[in-house]
């Protein structure tokens, strides 16, 4: 018998019992949909998680954190600034130099998460969340791929490469190129070593009146990160990042104040000496004059007030002003606390473990992309297993449906089997017919399930994308349909059909043709 004839025969028999076939296929469809949607969800999420690493060639990256005790957040490009305690080491430029000398390390750059409250596009009102990472673009470590504009260059100040999320928020999702050259305003909680100086406080202004300022720093958008990378993250150069991480504030100028106090003391002493002399001269004169006590007193008072007046005049001549003792001071947080992390590029993935070991010996924390990937893989494997189990149960029930449907078919078609046998059908022919029919049920369930999943996936993606963008989660089209999944699901449901059809088919093929023909 020809393949095509088995197919036609199977389809005719399925069509013959439409409603029952529909129900049977429906169960397979549900199974296929749950399998496809959940699997593609896992795949999509995994893809989102790993595509970031792949696009920056992240498998040979190693992130060094200040403390070997504390595991970092799992994101190589998102160093934790807060994970610092007494057992931490300070990551500074000498650490960078030290790490660069480890064999197989190609290059190193400090990475700093720069504190920025929010950002807005110049000319717009709405402010948005922004994650800002500073690194040294001149090093051979990070190469942030851009979809529009250019990458960061060494020495770029007030230049920024922004993430897709901001592009969307600014309303340029469809024409990101137009953002290049536009200016973005970053809001910080303090005055930093860039842009406007903090206003000099008048002396009367006490600390209690101090309000947290919202400082605007302007930057030019030079590039837009490609798809796939963490969409909430924007990038600047380390040089500029250092400036932005340096706080600027007014403080008392103790040296000047002390010098002034000394000068004042000297002046006072000098004046006092002069007036003491004048007082003694006056007393000498008064010995020969008849003066009342009151007159005498008045004279002294006069001299005293002259002295004070003189002191004041001379002091004023020195240029006395309280605000003169305030000086603009810088506090470089990176110099104080060290870098958030140092990112290394290793020459080969094979050498990552060796490099990681050497770094741990230095008492520093290490996170490699490989570890991150392994963790991600483990999590997704677990999710996949759970989902697989659910899908498996549904498909198992669907298989029972097929078995039931086919067993009933063997009873209904007993006489037909007899007729076919009389016409020369072999046992194998009969068996194949039933298996084919069951396989067709499974196949149809798989195909219909895929078509419906495709539609469902589109809807879920649309919903998911809008939720993700409002929540700032860097996920786009998290449900995907790779070819192997399509082929795999159809193959699986067809296979389930075959397995389910096996028993009824064997039953049908073993029927005695004489008995079958007699069957009413």
């Amino acid at each position, binding site marked *: 018998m020809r393949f095509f*004839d088995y197919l036609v025969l199977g389809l005719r028999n399925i069509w013959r019992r439409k409603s029952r076939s529909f129900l049977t296929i429906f169960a397979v469809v549900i199974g296929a949909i749950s399998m496809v949607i959940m699997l593609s969800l896992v795949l999509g999420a995994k893809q989102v998680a790993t595509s970031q690493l792949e696009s920056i060639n992240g498998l040979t990256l190693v992130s060094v954190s200040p403390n070997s005790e504390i595991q970092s957040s799992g994101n190589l490009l998102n160093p934790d600034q807060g994970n610092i305690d007494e057992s931490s080491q300070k990551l500074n430029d000498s650490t960078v130099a030290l790490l660069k000398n480890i064999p197989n390390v190609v290059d190193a750059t400090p990475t700093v998460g720069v504190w920025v409250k929010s950002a807005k596009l110049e000319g717009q009102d709405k402010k948005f969340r922004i994650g800002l990472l500073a690194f040294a673009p001149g090093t051979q470590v990070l190469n942030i791929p851009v979809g529009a504009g250019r990458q960061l260059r060494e020495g770029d100040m007030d230049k920024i490469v922004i993430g897709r999320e901001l592009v969307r928020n600014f309303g340029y999702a469809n024409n990101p190129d137009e953002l290049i050259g536009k200016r973005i305003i970053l809001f910080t909680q303090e005055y930093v070593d860039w842009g406007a100086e903090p206003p000099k406080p008048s002396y009367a202004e006490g600390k209690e009146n101090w309000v947290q300022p919202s400082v605007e720093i302007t930057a030019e958008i030079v590039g837009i990160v490609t798809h796939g990378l963490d969409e909430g993250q924007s990038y600047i150069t380390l040089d500029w990042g250092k400036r932005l991480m340096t706080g600027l504030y007014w403080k008392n100028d103790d040296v000047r104040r002390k010098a002034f106090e000394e000068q004042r003391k000297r002046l006072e002493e000098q004046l006092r000496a002069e007036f003491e002399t004048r007082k003694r001269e006056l007393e000498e004169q008064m010995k020969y004059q008849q003066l009342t006590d009151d007159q005498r007193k008045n004279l002294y008072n006069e001299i005293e007030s002259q002295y004070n007046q003189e002191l004041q005049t001379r002091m004023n001549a020195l240029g006395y002003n309280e605000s003169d003792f305030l000086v603009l001071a810088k506090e470089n947080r990176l110099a104080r606390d060290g870098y958030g992390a140092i990112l290394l590029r290793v020459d080969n993935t094979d050498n990552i473990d060796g490099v990681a070991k050497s770094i741990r010996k230095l008492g520093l924390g290490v996170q490699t992309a490989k570890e991150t990937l392994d963790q991600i893989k483990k999590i997704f494997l677990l999710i996949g297993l759970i989902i697989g189990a659910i899908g498996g149960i549904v498909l198992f029930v669907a298989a029972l449906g097929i078995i039931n449907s086919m067993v009933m078919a063997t009873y209904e078609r007993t006489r037909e089997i*007899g*007729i076919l*046998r*009389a016409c020369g059908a072999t*046992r*194998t022919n009969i068996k194949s017919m039933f298996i084919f029919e069951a396989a067709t049920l499974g196949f149809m369930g798989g195909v219909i399930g895929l078509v419906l999943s495709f539609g469902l996936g589109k809807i879920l993606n649309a919903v998911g994308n809008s939720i993700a963008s409002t929540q700032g989660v860097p996920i786009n089209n998290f449900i995907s349909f790779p070819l192997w999944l399509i082929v795999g699901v159809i193959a699986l449901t067809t296979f389930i059909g075959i397995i389910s059809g096996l028993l009824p088919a064997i039953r049908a093929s073993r029927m005695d043709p004489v008995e079958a*023909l007699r069957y009413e």
Partner: protein
Amino acid sequence: MSIIQLKSVSRTYVMGKETIPALDDVSLDIKEGEFLAIMGPSGSGKSTFANVIGGLDKPSSGDVLVDGECINKLNDKHISSYRNRKVGFIFQSFNLLPTYTALENVMIPLILTGESSSIRKQKAYECLKEVGLENRADHKPYQLSGGERQRVSIARALINQPQIIIADEPTGNLDTKKSEEIVSLLKELNRKKKITVIVITHDPSVARQADRTLHMKDGKIGKA
């Protein structure tokens, strides 16, 4: 020259504790081109005889030789092929597939041999023409009369140009006029195509058309 030889063929059925002999040591020669009628009361083993010759049933002992080949020793594949190519069955209840058209029913044996669609359509149509039903090709069994249905099943039996036609009560469900038509059709096939025809029947008027009539009783065969 004999086309079919039965050598001490017995067929017993086990029903609970009882053993029922449906065929009891039957030996018989059937000549090529012969029109043979088998008569006998119900339960005498006529149908078992037909099924054993047709390769639907196997004897418990003895041999059935067709063209010198011992068909009871063939495996499923070969006995199926024997049924497909050498034998054509006609049944009392027509045994047509209800959801298939007349043409499709006639085609079944060719579908099983893997014949191409165009050839089997053409051949099936020719066979329907032979039984005078070419204008009923697209009718389903329920749209046909009893006589027409039986003619469709004859067409189906003919499609692989068999050497033997086994008709088990072919007129049992038909009125006298239709019976005569069917029998004369069988007779014509027997004469023109030299097909060996074995008819199991209750009807003496059918048996009268035969070259030879055998009577069965209790699984044994006796001459008329």
